[in-house]
């Protein structure tokens, strides 16, 4: 049996974008493919992550901790935690998604992308533009031409700008 867990637990420091430091157990970050490789290959004890805001890092560490505690008996609780986890303002959700993608935490990436997809789902083009602040640079002629290309079965959606 591998006995890498014997002895005291290894500690790792993550440095967020605003130089704030987060000290945590090394085993926690192994869910991130990126950090796992850094820890395993280079044996570093402090990793700077200047592109990730501290606020985002706090959220991600919170997730890693919850995920590490996941057992068959608290699955429900974890699901609720996940739901709450992405129930944040759009700006924050996108920050987390980009950071998770960078860190390569695959399960969480899928979940974040689903949360973004859910904010596009069942909404009109106008609503999606408004929510994501996308500015249309089509001329009105172009737009009506392109809309005609969309199959008729796609029509008849809700116009919902909440969220």
């Amino acid at each position, binding site marked *: 049996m591998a006995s890498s867990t014997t002895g005291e637990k290894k500690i790792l420091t993550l440095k967020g974008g605003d130089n704030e430091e987060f000290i945590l157990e090394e085993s926690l970050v192994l869910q991130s493919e990126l950090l796992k490789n850094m820890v395993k290959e280079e044996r570093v004890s402090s990793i700077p992550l200047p592109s990730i805001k501290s606020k985002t890092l706090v959220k991600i560490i919170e997730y890693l901790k919850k995920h590490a505690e996941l057992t068959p008996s608290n699955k429900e609780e974890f699901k609720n935690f996940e739901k709450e986890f992405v129930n944040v303002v759009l700006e924050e959700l996108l920050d987390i998604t980009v950071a998770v993608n960078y860190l390569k935490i695959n399960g969480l990436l899928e979940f974040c992308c689903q949360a973004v997809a859910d904010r596009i789902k069942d909404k009109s083009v106008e609503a999606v533009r408004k929510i994501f602040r996308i500015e249309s640079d089509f001329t009105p002629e172009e*737009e009506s031409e392109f809309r005609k290309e969309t199959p008729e079965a*796609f029509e008849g959606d809700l116009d919902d700008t909440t969220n």
Partner: protein
Amino acid sequence: EDRLSEMPGNIIDHILDLMPIKDAAKTSILARKWRYIWCMHPNILLDKLTCRKFSTNPLLVLDNTINQILLQHIGNIIKFVLDFSQVDLLPLTNIDMWIRYVITKGVRDLTLDFSNNNPYKLPTYIYYYQNLTDLTLNNCLFKPLDFIFSYPNLKTLYLKQITFMATPKSIVLKAPVLANLTIMYCWGTESLNIVSPQLSYLFVVESHYLDLSCFMKCSNLAVVSLSLCKVVENPRQYERSTLLKFIFGLPMLEKLYLDTFYLKFLGEDPFPRSLPVVRNCLRHVMLSLALSNLAQVSFALHFIPCFHNSKTLQIWVFDSDNHADDVLNYLEKLKNLDRPIPNLEQVVIRCFNGSKPELLFIKLLFAATPNLIRMSIERDRIFTSNEDRKITGELMRYPRASSKAELFYLP
């Protein structure tokens, strides 16, 4: 500021995969930058809900919509999913064409689901197309033109409710890199011969006996799960010995699941009383066991200690009956298993009902496991406090071969 449009391409691809295709299609009219992102998106996923939604319109619309989606696509298609399990399938002539189309676009991961529908006869060119890495088929008729065909790149094959049309010779599928194979509720599998030397995961749920001899040489098999789903009448001796040879002969096997009908199939008289001891990689043994059936119970008790290196044992018990006298007699007389299971650390008994045969079975396991750490018993129902007291009293009394063994009595 518009953050979404600035996201890395792989995130946008991921997001597009996770929403219905109609929503993904709409992104192409958001802004200039988005114009061709969806059209060039390599995965076209026509899932159950999408297809059902389209089909609430006249069928022609469903046909036209899918035609349009495919014709608008630019570049390669990597993944194509067509799930018609909730569509009333009339003779839709275009399906063949769609498959041909995605093949010309180089599709690698193909899913065709016609469950709850008329079976779909696969077009024959699918047997000549060699780029597939993943193939999932549900409720299709399978009849290749040649008896031998090959998928040189196929890694995952999932077959559910497939009918292999009767052929005078057996069908040989050569899949040199196939790693994962699932065969569920298929017919005509007796004429199927899959040559897959790299196979590591085999999952079979069969309505009748599948000849496993073609997997004998799959020395990489790590996970094997076999369910029969019904009683085999008059099992043939050579089939049983093939199965045992298969199970005991896999050097890399880590996980094994056998369902109750397989245990019955193997346990029917006369079964070989002297089973070998294997010291392979098998760590996890899972069985579902009808405790009212003597053949199964006695076979299981001979079978479990065969795996010298097993670490965990999970048993789904059911059908236990306080009045199955032959089973009770057998279990009461049996003082010990053939041999101890030296490396077993965890036992999980699921669907526990508190009956006498279950308790005696657990007693035997306690006595045969010198290194047991955890015996978990998961109850199937809520017991009265009186029952609980009686059962736990009984369980705590049983002598344990391991001084470290803890008993977990779980809801």
